[in-house]
């Protein structure tokens, strides 16, 4: 192709030489016709110069020879002959030919020189372009493409192809708005970013873009406006980088942070982070509830705000020691000491804490997890109090048993001791049952009497006793004493009195007097229908209990009577906090 072109071009160049010389000869003829004889070479010199400039040396020499032949044959005398009449004519023809050849050779040299320079320039340009193209095409991780001022794609790199999926021929000539998500494209975003780039020189953004297959990816883009020397807009260069992985990592970190934040804020324990200067930089919801400070009031405050004054020095020292210990986390305090916090109200409260340390962006961070143990400490104190109380009661009860054993021994024979003693222990046990029901607050008199009679309270026997009276409440010691009293009375009735013969009856009644302003409780135990009453020779523990215990504990008095109808016992005691009308 280029060979044909060069031959054609060569033929054309020599043709031009012939044509120009013919025209010059014609022009000479016309000039001579109008103005008379002329110097024979007047039109040929300029023609040869013209030809050498346009068509180089070869055609110039040809033109010189053609002009010389024409001049010798038609212009030099004799006309139309190869003969030349004068020596002057020979010389002028020779000079013409010499001049023409010289001009042609000089022009040829000039042309070659110029061509060489052009070649050098072209080579330099070509290698520079090649390097640039290699650079652009070689950058695989960046999409590099150019847009015209309207946003039409005019060039497209391999990197762009790799990143976005379109081939060069698919995308060149298309508007770059197709790279935008449908929403941002329809919102006019593509035009807007070019406007900004045009106005500010360049535009940078991180945004979602679309691939050929419709999938989305995150891109960091820089759009630079391209201007020519006079400043008019020629187009835009776009450099884009796929940052999907970075965005994914960022999302994961953000998600992790959000998860952590929600865990921290929903934790039941207070979580507080302090920086290396012991200033609070994190304070969760439980901490707000525990200490009573709103978050914005404590952030940036020293941790001492939350610690009672007397622990300040010790606390700073503990944290410092922990900091240099190399341990990442441990419990604060020890088993023997209780840590204390201070609420915004100034109230102190016991707490348990663990501490951990980590390296943050700006130095060491300490995170403390705190649990308010006020309730647990209270429960523990309550428990220890209860245990002490229980020990006291058990020991007291053992002492009562000891007393019962001693009293029983005084009045019983070896044969009767065991039965009598265990009967009394049973009565004591019944009294404890009654008291346990009320959590050792006390017991009702009616219940105590009913329990006292209980061993003889089978249905057949129930008709044989009757109890009646207002509701009276007795404190624990008083209840125990009266339980034992009624046990003794019942036992006596079963041995010697109304319950000993199968038909006697017992009536227990009580009242408070005087009726309008009760001061005294009077309990009457009356037996009927038993065997004939005789004065007992040996009343034993029962009477001792009645006389002494009732006198001592109930501050009352006992009257024992033995009328023929049956045994009667009257107990009188003042009403008090320990013996009172139950409301």
């Amino acid at each position, binding site marked *: 192709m280029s060979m044909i072109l060069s031959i054609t071009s060569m033929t054309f160049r020599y043709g031009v030489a012939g044509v120009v010389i013919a025209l010059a000869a014609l022009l000479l003829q016309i000039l001579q016709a109008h103005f008379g004889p002329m110097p024979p070479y007047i039109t040929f010199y300029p023609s040869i110069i013209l030809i050498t400039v346009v068509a180089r040396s070869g055609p110039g020499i040809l033109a010189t020879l053609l002009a010389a032949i024409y001049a010798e044959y038609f212009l030099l005398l004799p006309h139309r002959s190869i003969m030349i009449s004068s020596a002057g004519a020979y010389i002028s023809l020779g000079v013409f030919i010499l001049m023409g050849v010289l001009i042609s050779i000089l022009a040829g040299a000039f042309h070659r020189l110029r061509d060489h320079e052009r070649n050098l320039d072209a080579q330099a340009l070509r290698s520079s372009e090649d390097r640039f193209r290699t650079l652009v095409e070689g950058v695989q991780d960046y999409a590099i493409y150019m847009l015209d001022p309207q946003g039409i794609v005019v060039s497209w790199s391999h990197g762009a192809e790799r990143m976005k999926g379109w081939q060069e021929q698919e995308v060149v000539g298309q508007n770059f708005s197709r790279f935008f998500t449908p929403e941002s494209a329809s919102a006019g975003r593509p035009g807007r970013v070019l406007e900004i780039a045009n106005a500010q020189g360049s535009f940078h953004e991180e945004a979602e873009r679309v691939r050929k297959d419709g999938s989305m990816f995150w891109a960091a883009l820089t759009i630079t406006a391209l201007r020519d020397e006079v400043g008019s807009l020629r187009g835009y260069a776009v450099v884009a980088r796929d940052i999907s992985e970075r965005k994914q990592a960022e999302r994961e970190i953000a998600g992790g942070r959000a998860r952590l934040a929600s865990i921290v804020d929903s934790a039941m324990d207070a979580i507080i982070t302090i920086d290396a200067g012991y200033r609070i930089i994190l304070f969760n919801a439980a901490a707000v509830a525990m200490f009573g400070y709103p978050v914005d009031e404590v952030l940036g405050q020293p941790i001492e705000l939350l610690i009672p004054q007397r622990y300040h020095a010790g606390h700073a020292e503990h944290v410092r020691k922990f900091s240099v210990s190399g341990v990442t986390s441990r419990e604060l305090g020890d088993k023997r000491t209780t840590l204390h916090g201070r609420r915004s109200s100034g109230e102190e409260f016991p707490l348990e804490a663990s501490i951990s340390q980590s390296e943050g962006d700006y130095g060491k961070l300490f995170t403390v997890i705190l649990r308010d143990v006020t309730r647990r400490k209270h429960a523990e104190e309550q428990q220890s109090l209860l245990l*002490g109380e229980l*020990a*006291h*009661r*058990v*020991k*007291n009860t*053992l*002492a*009562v*048993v*000891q*007393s*019962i054993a*001693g*009293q029983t021994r*005084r009045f019983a024979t070896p044969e009767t001791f065991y039965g009598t003693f265990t009967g009394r222990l049973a009565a004591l046990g019944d009294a404890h049952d009654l008291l346990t029901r009320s959590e050792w607050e006390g017991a009702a008199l009616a219940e105590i009497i009913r329990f006292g009679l209980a061993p003889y309270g089978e249905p057949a026997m129930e008709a044989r006793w009757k109890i009646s009276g207002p509701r009276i409440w007795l*404190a*624990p*010691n008083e209840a*125990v*004493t009266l339980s*034992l009293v009624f046990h003794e009375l019942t036992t006596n009735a079963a041995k010697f009195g109304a319950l000993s013969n199968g038909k006697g009856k017992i009536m227990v009644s009580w009242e408070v007097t005087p009726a309008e302003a009760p001061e005294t409780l009077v309990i009457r135990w009356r037996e009927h229908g038993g065997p004939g009453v005789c004065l007992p020779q040996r009343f034993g523990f029962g009477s*001792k*209990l009645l006389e*002494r*215990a*009732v006198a*001592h*504990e109930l501050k009352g008095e006992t009257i024992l009577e033995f009328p023929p109808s049956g045994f009667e016992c009257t107990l009188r005691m003042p009403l008090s*906090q320990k013996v009172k009308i139950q409301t």
Partner: protein
Amino acid sequence: MNSAWTDKKLNILVVEDSSMIAMLLEDLLVDLGCTVLGPAGSVAQALAALQGCEKPLDGAFLDVNLGSETVYPVADALLTRGVPFVFLTGYAAHGIEPRYSVIPALKKPFLASAIENAVKRFSGQA
């Protein structure tokens, strides 16, 4: 029980809110040849008994826990008068206020011999 170790009838105060235990103490003390002041079941009763007592008091048995109150006011009154006494308690030793740590405490239930030793101490024989 004999009272050969003392010629004098010791006058002993008993403060105990449980009448059964008071009765036991009373019996033990009477057997040891003592006269018993009380038994008192409360601080008020005990202080009243102290006030009304004509004979010099030789010693006292004080139950620490009197139900709704503690016996310490009686202890203080006895300390003021220079009357020796021992505590009776169902608690372990630490149940007594530290300022009375020099006062002997008998734990319930108690041995008759412990009561006897205490009485001997009151009489200055031990």
